[in-house]
């Protein structure tokens, strides 16, 4: 475990998580959520949980982002609050 790499990824996890809940544009939020999932996937891989990392990459960063984008396409792109 390289602590510099760990620090960078952990910082990016926090930044993307705060970004995903604070932006007004829901499409950007979905993309940031995908980036968050990918950073989590890298964290799992660093910690040696390769199976979890694989699941996170395919489900979290891949398909769930597509489903969110599809839902935004059918509803609205701006949040009310």
């Amino acid at each position: 475990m390289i602590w510099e790499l760990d620090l960078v990824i952990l910082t990016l996890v926090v930044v993307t998580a705060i970004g995903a809940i604070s932006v007004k544009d829901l499409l950007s939020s979905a993309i940031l959520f995908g980036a968050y999932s990918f950073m989590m996937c890298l964290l799992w891989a660093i910690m040696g949980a390769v199976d979890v990392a694989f699941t996170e990459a395919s489900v979290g960063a891949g398909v769930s982002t597509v489903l969110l984008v599809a839902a935004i396409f059918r509803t609205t792109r701006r949040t009310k609050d």
Partner: protein
Amino acid sequence: MKVIAFLIVILSGSILLYATVDFPGWADPASPAHTHLSPHYIEKTMQETSVPNIVTAVLADYRGFDTMFETAVIFSAGVVCFILLRVFRKEKGEHHYRHVPTGIIIHIKNDRIIPDSSEDFERIDTQWTPYDLVIKTVCRMLIPFIQLFALYVIAHGHHSPGGGFQGGVILGASIILLAISQNLRIALIRMQEKMHALLCPIGVLIYAGTGVLCLFFGFNFLDYSALASVLYVDPVTARSHGILLVEIGVGIAVMATMIWIYNNVSSAGKYDEGL
């Protein structure tokens, strides 16, 4: 309201952070989780199941009951999406067609259509009409390789990271990629609604059926060593093959559910025009 929600988030977050103080150190060999069960899995998995990847053995064999109900949860997610979103009522609509040789787009009202067999015109969506030959061709070339990789992930889950869930998601994603790069109707020709709606319970049934088959031979539910007499192998190898069987079931169920949810969400339940 926002302030209250923020305070609740801060409060529960700090409680969770406080709770992590009680955790054992990361990878501490003396922690409770690592003193009783983990050594057994690490030392005995190879003898008992002949599966090199311990995670797969734990997921599909030692904790097979958990995984079965995880698959059932995914199945019910697909069913709920279908019940909430699907509409069967046909609306009188307008259709858009692109004249392929010239790129001119025509707009037909009052539910009139140009037959699908027409080679000069192709139907396009009303809201989403990009036309990019590069994206279409690259996706068409990539999809077979993605599917082959997904099958490898499912079949090779015993030896490397992967298994039914990941492989199923990748298989589903390949069909979703087809729907995104072309349109939903072309994806529906490849994987019809009846097909993916049927494959979803079939995957769960394969899993549960493997368990029930073990019951018939007088063993416990999901004790795959019962399959030794059917597969003509010794009980240890039979457990490895049983894991492969249920992984295939999980893969089918997950693939069908992903496609099912995507089709319902992206077309708002109409299965006509989608992202």
